[in-house]
């Protein structure tokens, strides 16, 4: 998996939520803006009508009272009802000031007033925003001393209107937030529930053992079936390639082993019947080389079997290490005797259980066989080789040890001998350099820790395989 792919896989829910919430938020802002505009439009219209009514009333009053201001009572009344401060100014023809507030904002430049048509505008007065109206009309009242075009300005603060808009906005914003939050929660639940089949699929895959390549048979929603189908196809391909690989190994083993067996039998037979000293030496060399080649072929095949790509089809089950080690050791006793090696077994289990929860008998036999074979082949006549099994402890699993008092491996070389085809002693014609590599692979397959240590009293080699608890 690339970084990218993991990022996508972890943020699928986030991506879905983003797609749900971002347009939702934009929609909410749009609605809020529209709401704001509508409300302020309405408030303006209401205030404008009030202003016109006031303008008409005030100017009537001013004209009728010949330029009197509104009485204090009326002003108070006005304030009480509208909750705004009201300022006005009445001008007679030619701009002559009749009454009111002479400092009131003027009509913006470039506006020509139509008679009887009010002009509305926003202005600033006494450190407050005000809404203002200006209109002019013809006075031809014989009872007043004013005759001609009268201009009236009325301004009113906008506190109430702003409060109204503010309340309205606050209310609808709260509503929207609640709505968004609930939407988010439901979206989260929905997304989670929508992704649940994927999570089930993931768990189903994770619970599988490494060698279980059967197709996945879980009920899946439409959108995921395609993924599962592709996955199953992949599994099928993998399985067939593993099977082919194993078949190849079996074929190769067969093809290699029979001719080798023939050569070996021929050479041994010739050696038995050879009387000439030179012939004997040549034949002995052939026999030992053939044995080595045979061993190499065997080990190559074994390595192919135990390497990660070859062991996928391996079944792991509860395995008793003590019984297995004893039987493998027994089987190698005669081989050891032929090489004049004292091979023995040391049961240190002390009645503790020596079971490995997930062990594979074939691989473990192969591993122990290799260790014993190494000790025998690299040992000199009289070398003592001991296979030891230590029982499971409180915090540790069972331990398998193969100890000898043979030549050992120098400390500086202990890492390199685990690599394939590394041999320390080129003079020794027996090993082929795969034994310990196989041991290491099998230990890895069992999550066991392999270590090379000095044998008893610093002589020889002790290979220790500590299995997990």
């Amino acid at each position: 998996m690339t970084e990218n792919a993991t990022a996508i896989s972890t943020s699928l829910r986030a991506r879905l939520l983003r797609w749900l919430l971002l347009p939702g938020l934009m929609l909410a802002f749009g609605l809020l803006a529209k709401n704001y505009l509508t409300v302020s439009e309405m408030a303006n219209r209401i205030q404008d009508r009030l202003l016109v009514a006031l303008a008409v009333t005030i100017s009537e009053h001013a004209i009728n009272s010949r330029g009197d201001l509104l009485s204090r009572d009326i002003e108070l009344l006005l304030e009480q009802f509208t909750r705004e401060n009201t300022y006005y100014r009445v001008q007679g023809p030619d701009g002559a000031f009749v009454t009111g507030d002479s400092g009131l904002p003027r009509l913006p430049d470039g506006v020509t007033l139509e008679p009887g048509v009010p002009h509305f505008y926003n202005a600033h007065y006494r450190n407050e925003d005000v809404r203002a109206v200006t209109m002019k009309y013809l006075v031809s009242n014989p009872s007043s001393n004013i005759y001609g075009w009268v201009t009236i300005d009325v301004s009113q603060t906008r506190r109430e209107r702003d409060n109204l808009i503010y309340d309205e906005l606050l209310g609808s914003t709260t509503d929207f937030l609640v709505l968004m939050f609930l939407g988010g929660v439901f979206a989260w639940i929905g997304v989670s529930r929508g992704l649940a089949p994927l999570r089930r699929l993931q768990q189903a895959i994770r619970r599988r053992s490494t060698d279980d390549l059967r197709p996945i048979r879980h009920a899946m929603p439409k959108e995921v079936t395609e993924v599962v189908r592709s996955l199953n196809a992949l599994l099928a391909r993998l399985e067939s390639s593993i099977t082919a690989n194993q078949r190849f190994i079996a074929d190769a083993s067969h093809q290699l082993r029979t001719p080798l067996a023939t050569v070996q039998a021929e050479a041994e037979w010739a050696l038995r019947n050879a009387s000439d000293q030179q012939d004997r030496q040549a034949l002995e060399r052939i026999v030992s080389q053939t044995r080595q080649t045979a061993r190499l072929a065997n080990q190559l095949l074994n390595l192919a079997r135990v390497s990660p790509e070859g062991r996928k089809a391996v079944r792991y089950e509860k395995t008793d290490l003590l019984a297995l080690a004893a039987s493998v050791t027994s089987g190698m006793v005669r081989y050891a005797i032929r090489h004049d090696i004292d091979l023995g077994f040391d049961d240190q289990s002390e009645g503790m259980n020596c079971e490995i929860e997930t062990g594979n008998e074939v691989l473990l036999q192969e591993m122990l066989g290799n260790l014993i074979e190494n000790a025998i082949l690299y040992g000199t006549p009289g070398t003592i080789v001991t296979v030891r099994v230590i029982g499971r402890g409180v915090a540790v699993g069972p331990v398998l040890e193969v100890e000898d008092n043979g030549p050992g491996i120098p400390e500086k070389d202990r890492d390199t001998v685990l690599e394939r085809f590394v041999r320390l002693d080129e003079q020794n014609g027996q090993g082929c350099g795969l034994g310990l590599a196989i041991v290491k692979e099998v230990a890895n397959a069992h999550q066991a820790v392999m270590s090379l240590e000095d044998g008893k009293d610093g002589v020889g080699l002790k290979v220790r395989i500590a299995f997990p608890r």
Partner: protein
Amino acid sequence: MRILIVEDNLVLADKIAAALRQTDHAVDLVHDGEDALRLVLQETFDLLILDLSLPGLDGIEILKTVRARKINLPVMILTARGNLDERVAGLDAGADDYMVKPFELSELEARARALLRRNIGQRNPAITVGKLTFNSVDRSVTIDGQPVLLTPRERGVLEILLLNVSQVISKEKIALHLFGFDDEASVKSIELYISRLRKKIASGDVEVRTIRGLGYMIDE
């Protein structure tokens, strides 16, 4: 003793036959499965050495037929297929032993001898190792034809070791064979019987080996 070798590789078959003939056995050779089966059903053999991958008829099929007919014939399988499933299949089908190619001739000879000895009863009741002969009918023991006097316990120990020549037998198994149970005291007593037995058969070119931590083994 009469041995039948079924192996399609002529050179290899030839060499195995030659090696076995050296030890005074009568050896017949066939190279294909159907011939082998015909021969096994008609004639009597003491040992069948059988390759698994044969032309004509698979070795396992031959083995199954032999076992189904209740023919008392030890069978050693010879094969290049060395993985465990194959081995188990072979042994499940009734093989007595199993050798994976390539092998050493001497190893094959030793195992063939062990199988021939194990097949005691109708044809040859005597087991011979070195100069020592054990008659499985009257359980008498002779060295160079001279009778050896053994106690019943010593005789029992020798018997189980001889029935499993070249195989390691644990003290527990010996105790079970002698007493029918394997408590600690009886297992301890085995050492005593072994040491007495060793003294009595020392002249017979037979060695009862102690295998450290595993038990005992009789070997030539």
